[in-house]
Each structure stands twice: as structure tokens, then as C-alpha cells.
């Protein structure tokens, strides 16, 4: 038993009493409080201070009733719980917490696939279900259904990614937009089913999202108002045909005409998915070793990256997209899209293998994490409009700041008709404290510069949530605080998540 409490507001004896009570609920084998085991469990990737975001313990319930009991104990002892599903969230916080000492509520043991409906193409899952489990089930039942998942697909699950409003790269890329019905345990133990879920005997919980009255699902995403214990999601019927393409533009300045050419094709649905516009360095992470290209200090020079990309037939900007549907439509739309992008200066390469765009699980993109060695990763994720001039402006600001901090400028923006989620990975050596501090300074400089330009964010990681909440305005923050006080008056669920506290 430690003589010191990891929580600032709770004494050591009370903290230990809470852990003991947690263990009584889940079994001592499902509670981790040994410092060495905790350190392993919660290896940080982000460039934030380790101690400031270290969890105090990990508790893993197996049922809704156990979640309710844990919340009751948490309230009694004022020991907060931070829910995670599979606990990945690479580059946004993994299993770190906003307030040091908060106990991780790991929901991985709740891993039942409760339903797959092949008629309506829906599923109902618990938070511990991974995309791999769903894929195995779909394959075992030979269902003509596709999953949509983020880059670490096999290792993560739909509930966590949806609650973070993450995305993928098929036509079902918007995971929250394709969720349908949450079961949420509130801090007082109330079990709420959103949408149609409150209607006794309903068969429409996973079919109709909005229910009656206010639609509440959104307030349980990127928030700390409850613990989501079940989630419905929609599955994509496998299309009759599909083709994946890479459009490459040779010059940095081509981004403007690339975005302006893609936008109308996304707005009218000719291009069926949120393709990715990646710069040369990001695509090089999949086909080259950095150490073979550059052995100097600081960011890789632009001319070296450009030359290396060109040697592999890649451009300064590379747009990976797919066309899906009936075979005749794919043929017709391919001609339209290829013609439009070539007219805007692109070289279009057909039939590119990209598992993610066709619903096949892969971890190929993990080559990104080893680009510089040392396993450091943080995502800087501004929202941009789908206008070429604004996209180019964001890239220029980000590139200048990243290179000034010795970070390679990389972006893999996902582009819809109206908005781009301009996700930029900062990859650095987490084993070097000076480099890690420099990466943190870079993140903070990026937030300052983007806020000054009026650019907001789609998502933020541990250590930067308060700053992003501040950028998004005091009125939003105040309303979130009022919701928090109403739904969790003791502040026992994920204090500080998305900058929301009592």
C-alpha cells in the first residue's frame, strides 16, 4: 500500500479504500495498482509530462452492473474514473488521463457482440468489441457487409473511436454519423438508452437515430457525461464493384487546384469516400526509411523529400480515393473523376491496393510510428474548409512551425465536400527528453498560431484539451460545465476530458 495518494484531493487511506472496494466488485485480478504494471499499461506516446497524466490504477468491469457499482464507490470516495474501451487512442492520449491519479475504467472485458442484423445491416456491441472481433464474426457468418475503421483497426473498436468522433475511409467514414443508439450509465447509476432505445419492445433502436425529443447521443461524444456501455452501428453493404485510385500532383503549390477539383466531386457524391490528401513525407513513411534519406539533424529538407517521393512516382500531394457501386456506375464515374483530376494537373494511377478503403483490416500505416524511432506521436487536428486557398494557408503555417521545431511536416487530410479534417502527425523520439519537450512546444505554438487565424479543431489529445476548449469559446465551455454539474455533480467521470470540469 502506497503512503501517498496519486489524487491531489483524496488522502492515501481513502484512495486505498476505494481500490479495495473496486476489487471487491470486479475481482482483485481485474484491478491493477502495482506501479510497474501501471507504467507498462499506460506507456505515453504524446509529448506531455508523464506524471501529470498518469492514472492511479486500472479497474476492468465485465458488466453494466459492475460499472454501476464502481460509479457508486467512486462517488462515495470521490475517486474519479476515466472510461476507455480498448485503451488505444494512439497519439491522442492512449491510457493517460487529464487529472493525475484518475482511475482508468477499462471496458475491454465487456466484449460481446450482442447483435448483427444482416437485413438492416446493423450491429449492437459492447465497448470492448474490436473491429477484428466484428470482422471475424462477419466472415464466419459469410455476411456481405463491410466495416469502416481507423488506421489501427484490428487493435481498436467502434465504441471508443465513435465516441472520439473518429473516422475511416469508406463511404461510412463518419463513425458517429453511422452510430445508432447508445446505452449510457450516468454518474448516479441511471441507465439511459438514447434514440429509440427507451421504447419497450422496440425493434428500431439500431434503425432510427433520433428518437423523440432532443437527440442526446452527441453529448456523450468527446465528453465526460456518462459511461457508454453499448452502441449500435451501421454496417455497409458490400458494393458490387469498387476501384481505388491515387492522384498525384507534382508541386507544393498544386494543393489549391487539387482541393478545388476534388470538392465538387465529393459534394455530388461521384467520389464515394473521404479520400486522403497526403503530402510527400507522409506517403514516404509507407515506402521508405527516413534514415536512408536524411541523416542530419532537424526536419527533413523539403527538396530531399520531394526527390525521394518523385523517384517512387509520388507527388508533393497525393490523393487516395475510391469509387464504389454498381459496376456500370463505377466505370462511368471513373471516367468523370479521372478526367476532372487530370484536367487539374494530376497524374491518376488506377487500382491502388489500400485495404482500409475496401474494408479490410490492416496495420500497414504503423510504419508512420517508426519514421523517427522512439515511438513518440501526437496528432494536431485542425478543421479546414474544402477550399484550396485555405488548405494551402493551413499547410504553410503548420509546415513553418513544425520545421522550426525540428519536426517533419506531415499531413493526411480527409476531405469531404465542405470540410477537411487536416490531421497532422507529429512523430518524434519519445525516448529523448529534449526532443519530447520540443515536440510539446511545437504543439503549443501550432495551437496559438491556428487560433490566431480563426481555425478550430476536430479533436484534441491529453494535455491540450483545455487549450482547445478555450479556443472554441467560453460560451460552449460554460454550457458544457452546466451539463457536467447536472449529470455528474461530484465530477467522478473523466474530469478534464475535452476541457470539461465542474
Amino acid at each position, binding site marked *: 500500500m502506497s503512503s501517498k495518494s496519486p489524487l491531489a484531493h483524496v488522502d492515501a487511506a481513502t484512495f486505498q479504500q476505494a481500490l479495495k472496494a473496486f476489487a471487491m466488485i470486479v475481482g482483485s485480478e481485474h484491478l491493477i495498482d502495482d506501479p510497474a*504494471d501501471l507504467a*507498462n499499461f499506460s506507456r505515453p506516446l504524446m509529448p506531455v509530462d508523464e506524471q501529470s497524466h498518469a492514472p492511479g490504477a486500472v479497474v476492468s468491469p465485465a458488466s453494466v452492473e459492475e460499472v454501476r457499482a464502481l460509479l457508486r464507490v467512486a462517488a462515495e470516495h470521490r475517486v474519479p474514473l476515466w472510461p476507455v474501451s480498448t485503451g*488505444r487512442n494512439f497519439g491522442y492520449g492512449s491510457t493517460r488521463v487529464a487529472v493525475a491519479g484518475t482511475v482508468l475504467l*477499462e471496458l*475491454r472485458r465487456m466484449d460481446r457482440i450482442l447483435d448483427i442484423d444482416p437485413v438492416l445491416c446493423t450491429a449492437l456491441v459492447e465497448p470492448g468489441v474490436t473491429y477484428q472481433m466484428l470482422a471475424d464474426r462477419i466472415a464466419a457468418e459469410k455476411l456481405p457487409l463491410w466495416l469502416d475503421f481507423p488506421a489501427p483497426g484490428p487493435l481498436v473498436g467502434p465504441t471508443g473511436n465513435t465516441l472520439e468522433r473518429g473516422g475511416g475511409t469508406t463511404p461510412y467514414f463518419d463513425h458517429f454519423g453511422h452510430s445508432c443508439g447508445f446505452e449510457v450509465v450516468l454518474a448516479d447509476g441511471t441507465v439511459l438508452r438514447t434514440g429509440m432505445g427507451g421504447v419497450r419492445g422496440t425493434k428500431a433502436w439500431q434503425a432510427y437515430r433520433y428518437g423523440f425529443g432532443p437527440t442526446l447521443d452527441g453529448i456523450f461524444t468527446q465528453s465526460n457525461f456518462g459511461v457508454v456501455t453499448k452502441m449500435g452501428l451501421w454496417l455497409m453493404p458490400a458494393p458490387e464493384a469498387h476501384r481505388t485510385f491515387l492522384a498525384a500532383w507534382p508541386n507544393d503549390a498544386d494543393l489549391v487546384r487539387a482541393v478545388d477539383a476534388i470538392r465538387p466531386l465529393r459534394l455530388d457524391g461521384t467520389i464515394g469516400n473521404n479520400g486522403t490528401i497526403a503530402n510527400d513525407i507522409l506517403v514516404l513513411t*509507407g515506402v521508405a526509411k527516413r534514415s536512408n534519406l536524411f541523416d542530419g539533424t532537424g526536419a527533413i529538407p523539403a527538396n530531399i523529400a520531394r526527390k525521394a517521393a518523385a523517384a517512387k512516382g509520388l507527388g508533393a500531394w497525393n490523393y487516395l480515393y475510391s469509387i464504389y457501386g454498381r459496376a456500370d456506375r463505377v466505370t462511368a464515374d471513373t471516367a468523370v473523376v479521372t478526367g476532372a483530376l487530370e484536367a487539374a494537373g494530376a497524374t491518376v494511377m488506377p487500382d491502388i491496393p489500400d485495404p482500409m478503403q475496401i474494408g479490410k483490416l*490492416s*496495420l500497414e500505416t504503423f510504419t*508512420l*510510428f517508426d519514421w523517427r524511432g522512439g515511438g513518440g506521436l501526437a496528432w494536431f487536428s485542425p478543421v479546414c474548409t474544402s477550399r484550396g486557398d485555405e488548405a494551402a494557408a493551413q499547410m504553410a503555417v503548420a509546415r513553418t512551425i513544425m520545421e522550426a521545431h525540428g519536426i517533419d511536416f506531415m499531413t493526411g487530410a480527409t476531405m469531404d465536400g465542405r470540410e477537411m479534417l487536416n490531421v497532422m502527425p507529429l512523430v518524434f523520439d519519445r525516448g529523448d527528453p529534449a526532443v519530447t519537450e520540443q515536440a510539446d512546444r511545437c504543439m503549443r505554438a501550432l495551437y496559438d498560431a491556428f487560433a490566431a487565424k480563426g481555425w478550430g479543431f476536430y479533436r484534441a489529445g491529453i494535455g491540450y484539451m483545455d487549450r482547445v476548449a478555450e479556443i472554441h469559446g467560453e460560451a460552449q465551455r460554460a454550457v458544457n460545465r452546466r451539463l457536467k454539474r447536472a449529470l455528474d455533480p461530484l465530477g467522478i467521470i473523466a474530469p478534464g476530458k475535452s476541457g470539461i470540469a465542474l
Partner: protein
Amino acid sequence: MIAALLLAAAAAPPSAPPPIWHAACAYCHENSKVGPPLNGPYDPAALRAIIRSGVDAMPPFHPSELSDEEIDALAQWLAARPAAR
């Protein structure tokens, strides 16, 4: 008779991999440019340490998704399989 049994045992193919192999490991460690191929044998304790803590691009695997016994089974299977590609 005993010699024949021993020969048969030596020639027997490795048993099926533990489920975690296809659910996670193989994505990066079999026909992949992400991680190195795994050619055992590995010391189970060392393997467990790496799997539990992760290294560089490889994330840690938690006790709730992979038990110590499952890691030991993985080590045994890796030690018995032919050299990976």
C-alpha cells in the same frame, strides 16, 4: 517403435497459432514491412516484457486482452514454427 514416434513428433507441423497471432501480431510480423519477422525461439519472460510494455511503434498489450498464459503459449508456438518470412 519409440524411434519412429520420436521421428514423427519431430516432423509434426507446429500446432495452430494462438488467436492473438492473427488478431494482432501477424499484421506487423508476417509478410509485413511494419515489424520484423519473428523467428524464435524467444525467452517467454523477455517476450512477455516486450508485449506488456510495447516498444517504438508496437503498442503494449494489456492483461485484459492477453493473459500471461496466452503470451507463454505464443512463445511456445513461435519457438516451434519454421522460420518466418
